[in-house]
């Protein structure tokens, strides 16, 4: 190993405090050119802080950052940082109303000859050249708004590369992608890797780490736990390093869906030939005490079907019966009254009100039951919230804490508590484990299984195999139709193939 060039990017002995909280304690990372590096850790482990320090947005309290063996640029010299490293954030940073070409050269004017206004022709030409260089098949004239998520990611990567860096940090790029779009993104990434680009790849989906990275670093509780080539760190050991628990055989929470005692429960939900803009002629039934998975890609209509059950989406035809009574569709209050509780798809938009406290978020659907005449007794509200905090093991200071102060996994648990607040007979969970760490995922799935044990019917909409393992049955949707059904004990390869809509046999 002697004579090897210094690492492309290296951080050593980094300590960073925010007030009393230590975000990083003597942590470090070394990324070698050409060896894409995975960075994993539970929410709050210090990943974001490390990225902020590597990109020069935060200065460490102790420790050094070096690029190619040279000390990092001065904090104010953004241009120098941009030449060494770029970060593509989880949330899209393209301006939707501008064209791809404008987005590529955002904030710079190398395409303008001195004294002249913007030369659109030249801008487009250089944008085209840049996109071709990196093999991004996106029209340069397109308005960025119409791009798919993974195309927008590629535009962001191309923008970063145009500034001279060959080191790109990807922060959960696949969080909003379905399996097929993620696979396309990986294809692009591999091509870029061949062209000499190195990635620091952050993701909660551990499978992806094995797919695109050569080395992986695990952070836990503000420390670096391990750095190893992915080949030497099997999934089990990786999860052990992330959670700090002994590397027990990984299993879905509570041994995957034990057979239900007493066979079929009474029918809780009957969906009859339901149609809408996103799904067609869907019929299904859910029994009480049953967890049914609804799997599908982003455009398959599975999310909308779940939302329709909860009154968040109005179907155009067909009918829904809850506990034998027809449900007035398109009305959340009606769905709540009928006994449907819902964990909506995105906690940032539908799941939680960021300005309100933990207690207020949890009790929002039951605000009429906390005192006489619609008045809210704070004591009753907080008591209810405390019970939920205990039951779901939410890590929070108390009911009055603002919900945004919690980590992602705990926020999701608050949203789950809100769905359970009305004591629903039918629980609709849409992507319940999106963007949460391994331990929170297990806790959330355990809640779903507990709801089943309590005799509720659970519809779990997800395309994550780990989630679907907890289900008694899995229905697969593609293109708006239910295309396949599996009983518990399915083979993962088969299910994924059905979700992706590809015939088995190749790959």
């Amino acid at each position, binding site marked *: 190993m002697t004579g090897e060039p210094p690492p492309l990017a290296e951080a050593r002995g980094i300590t960073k405090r925010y007030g009393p909280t230590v975000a990083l304690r003597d942590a470090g990372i070394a990324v070698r050119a050409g060896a894409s590096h995975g960075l994993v850790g539970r929410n709050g482990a210090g990943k974001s802080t490390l990225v902020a320090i590597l990109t020069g947005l935060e200065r460490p309290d102790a420790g050094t950052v070096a690029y190619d063996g040279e000390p990092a640029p001065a904090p104010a010299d953004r241009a120098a940082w941009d030449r060494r490293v770029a970060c593509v954030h989880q949330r899209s940073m393209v301006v939707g109303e501008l064209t791809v070409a404008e987005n590529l050269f955002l904030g710079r004017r190398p395409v303008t000859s001195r004294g002249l206004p913007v030369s659109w022709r030249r801008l487009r030409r250089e944008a085209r050249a840049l996109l071709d260089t990196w093999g991004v098949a996106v029209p340069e004239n397109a308005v960025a708004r119409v791009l798919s998520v993974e195309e927008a990611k590629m535009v962001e990567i191309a923008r970063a590369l145009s500034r001279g860096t060959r080191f790109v940090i990807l922060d959960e790029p696949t969080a909003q992608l379905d399996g097929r779009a993620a696979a396309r993104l990986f294809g692009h990434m591999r091509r870029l890797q061949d062209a000499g680009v190195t990635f620091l790849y952050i993701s909660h989906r551990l499978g992806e780490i094995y797919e695109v990275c050569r080395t992986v670093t695990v952070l836990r509780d503000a420390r670096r736990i391990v750095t190893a080539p992915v080949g030497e760190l099997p999934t089990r050991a990786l999860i052990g390093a992330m959670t700090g628990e002994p590397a027990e055989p990984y299993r879905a929470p509570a041994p995957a869906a034990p057979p239900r005692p007493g066979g079929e429960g009474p029918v809780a939900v009957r969906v009859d030939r339901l149609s809408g803009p996103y799904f067609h002629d869907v019929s299904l039934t859910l029994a009480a005490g049953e967890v049914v998975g609804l799997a599908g890609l982003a455009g398959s209509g599975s999310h909308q079907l779940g939302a329709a059950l*909860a009154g*968040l989406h109005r179907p155009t035809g067909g009918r829904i019966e809850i506990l034998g009574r027809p449900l007035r569709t398109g009305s*959340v*209050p009606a*769905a*709540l009254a009928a006994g449907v509780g*819902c964990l*909506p798809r995105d906690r940032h*938009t*539908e*799941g*939680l*009100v*960021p*300005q*309100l406290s933990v207690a*207020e978020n949890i009790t*929002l*659907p039951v*605000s*009429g039951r*906390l*005192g006489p005449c*619609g*008045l*809210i*007794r*704070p004591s009753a509200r907080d008591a209810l919230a405390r019970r939920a905090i205990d039951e779901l093991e939410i890590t929070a200071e108390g009911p009055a804490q603002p919900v945004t102060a919690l980590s992602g996994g705990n926020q999701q648990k608050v949203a789950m508590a*809100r769905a359970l607040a*009305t004591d629903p007979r039918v629980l609709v969970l849409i992507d319940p484990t999106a963007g949460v760490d391994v331990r929170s995922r297990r806790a959330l799935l355990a809640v779903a299984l507990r709801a089943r044990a309590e005799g509720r019917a659970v519809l779990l909409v997800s395309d994550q195999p780990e989630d679907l393992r907890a289900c008694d049955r899995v229905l697969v949707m593609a293109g708006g139709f239910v295309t396949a059904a599996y009983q518990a004990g399915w083979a993962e390869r088969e299910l994924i193939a059905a979700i992706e809509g590809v015939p088995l046999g190749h790959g």
Partner: protein
Amino acid sequence: MGAVNGALIVGLGLNGFIVTLAMNIVLRGVLIGLVSGRTLFSAPDAFFALGSQDWLGVPISVWLTALCFALAGFVLRYHRHGRAVYAIGGSTPAARAAGIRTGRVGWAVLVIGGALSGVAGLVLAGRVGALGANQGSGLIFTVFAAAVIGGISLRGGRGSLLGALLGTLLLGMLENLLTLAQVSSFWIQAIYGGIILVALVVARLTTGEAQES
């Protein structure tokens, strides 16, 4: 008028600020048209009672203000509909997903707001003892300023009625102070505006939070 505004804003999804401003101009125009630009003095006594009579030595308008603030403050804090207003202000989709009838609550808020401003108009007319064509013009901006100074987010979801009360009192006292200090009435408006700006800057610096308006 709140009901019409509500229909336009909630029903058609128009921008609340713009609709309010436009309605303000329309109503002012109607007022000027009705009185042909003159000032009315003759009206039944009852019409002016709210702004001109006392009860237990304190003007009725003060009692009325105290009552409105106390009632609204209580409802906003301890009633489900009051909390629903906060939830909707914070995140409308999240409130909708939690079973709150967002459209209906928003409409009700605008109707109540319209009714309250009607009462305020009666008080003002009673205090002046006349109905001027120009009465209350420009008040809309003072109201915005009072709300923002009182720590209320114009984007919604944040703020309290106590803040609104303090903001209103602060601006009211300011106006009084300027008059008492015998500042030339030609300059009062400019100074008043300047002080509001300074107050906003101070509020921004002391709380450290950006006022996302």
